[in-house]
Structure formats: structure tokens, C-alpha cells
């Protein structure tokens, strides 16, 4: 039942709600550093949990993150391992 799944989605979202969630602006501020952390093979979700949390919830920001990752993967970071940031 469609109605059931909508309510279930809302209940799931409500259940996962945290008081310390950051907004889109704050996520965007940190997105470049987050992307580089991912590409350096580090655990970005652990290093920057509030950013990861926001990306789990926000479709707009998640879309931008994935596009940024694609751009970086295939340009700056792809060619040589020694060009990874410290």
C-alpha cells in the first residue's frame, strides 16, 4: 500500500533524526575536504561524521558530492598515487 510506505518512510526519517544535524551550507563548506578524504582511501564517514550524516539525508548535497567525486577521480587524483594530498 502506497500510503503505508510513505508513512513508513517518514517514521524511518523521524527515527534517524539527530539534534546536531548540519545544514546544506555547512556541508558544502566541508565537501571538498570530505571528497579528498574519501579519495585518499581514509574513512571519511568516521573523520567527518556530520558531513556523512547530512549526505545520507540530503539528496541535493549527495548529488553534488557524487559529481565532485567523479570529477576529481578522473582528473586530479587518478594519474599518480604520489599526487595524493598529505
Amino acid at each position, binding site marked *: 500500500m502506497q500510503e503505508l510506505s510513505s508513512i513508513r518512510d517518514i*517514521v524511518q526519517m523521524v527515527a534517524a533524526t539527530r539534534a546536531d544535524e548540519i545544514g546544506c551550507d555547512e556541508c558544502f563548506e566541508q565537501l571538498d575536504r570530505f571528497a579528498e578524504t574519501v579519495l585518499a582511501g581514509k574513512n571519511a564517514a568516521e573523520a567527518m561524521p556530520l558531513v556523512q550524516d547530512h549526505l545520507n539525508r540530503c539528496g541535493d548535497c549527495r548529488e553534488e558530492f557524487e559529481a565532485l567525486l567523479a570529477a576529481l577521480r578522473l582528473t586530479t587524483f587518478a594519474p599518480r598515487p604520489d599526487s595524493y594530498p598529505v
Partner: protein
Amino acid sequence: MGMRTDAEWCSQLSSAAPDSALADLRGLLLRGLSFALASYRVTESDLEDFVQDGLIKILQELSSYRGDARFTTWAQKVCVRLALTELRRRRWRDVSLDDLVANTEMADITPAVLADRSADPSQVAPVQMMVAAVQRIIAEELTERQRTAMMAVMQGGMPLQEVAERMGANRNALYKLIHDSRQRLQKRMLYEGLTPQELLAMFEQA
């Protein structure tokens, strides 16, 4: 394409002779964006426009680059945001909030089971009663603005940016509006003894 340090990028782009740095950055951004938007319907001309607008924005906001990430990463981020913002605008241009909200099944928040006064409560399945309770909480706790925002994003699938614009807000403010809504529902559900775990378990059984 020469390798520049972050500091060199910044100083050259803000110097009296930025052309070489601009040309290199343009090439880098164009390549990056073409990969980033590989699965989107964009033309070569679109990509060039996005990069051009991106460069303008980057130069305007140069002083806000703090060095947390590489300059080129930061610049790519600015460009990607700009491009996707425009693509979303195009994609959703002809969709009004009214149409979207009216088409979602949340439009009628009066649960059928309660609307029918002759219904025998003992015949109503627990999950239906629970759904009705959640719908009642949504109706009582949230303003119309909050309900509209939640429905449009969650049920309608409209990007936050697009909902925000139609509601006269910015994306950040809309995220916070929805966050506030979720917190209200969370508090109220807790108050009424509706724990998420129990509710979700009931959904599994339904």
C-alpha cells in the same frame, strides 16, 4: 598544464596577469565537469557555459578559499554546485508545488479508517491504527508550510533547492525547516509512547 601550489593559484588568479592560470583552470574544470556530468543530458556548450560561470564565481569568492582542501578541489566544487543547480532548475522548471503536493497520497491526511464513523475499532488492524496515529501527529504538530515542504521533498522527490525557491526560502533554510519538523514529530511520537522500533516492526508484519 603546469602544476601550481594552492598559493600560486590564488596569487596568479588575483594578479594583474591571470590569463595563464585562468586558461589552465578552465581546462581543468571543463575536464572535471565533463566527467561529473557524464550521465546527465548536457551539451558541450552547456559545459562551457557552466565553466565560464564557475570561473566568475571562483574569482568573486577567491578570498573565501581557506586551504582546507586543494585549490583545484575547491574550485571544482564551486563549479559542480553551479552546474547542478542550473540542471535542477531546468529539469523542474514546469513543475509547480501545488501540482506536486496534490499528486502525492499524503494530500488527504484524514485516514479513511477514522473518517468512516461506522467503522468498528476492533476490526481495524493495529497497523492501520498506527498509520492513523502518525498521520494525526503530522497534522497536529506541523504547520502547513512544514507539511508542504516534507511532502514535496519526500513524496514528490523535488530537490530541496527547487522546493525552497517556490516557498521563498533558500536551500539551507528549507533543510532546517524539515529538520525542525522531524524533531517535532520525534518528540511528539516519544510523548505518545510510539517508539520508532515498534512502529517499524509493525510495518514489517503488515
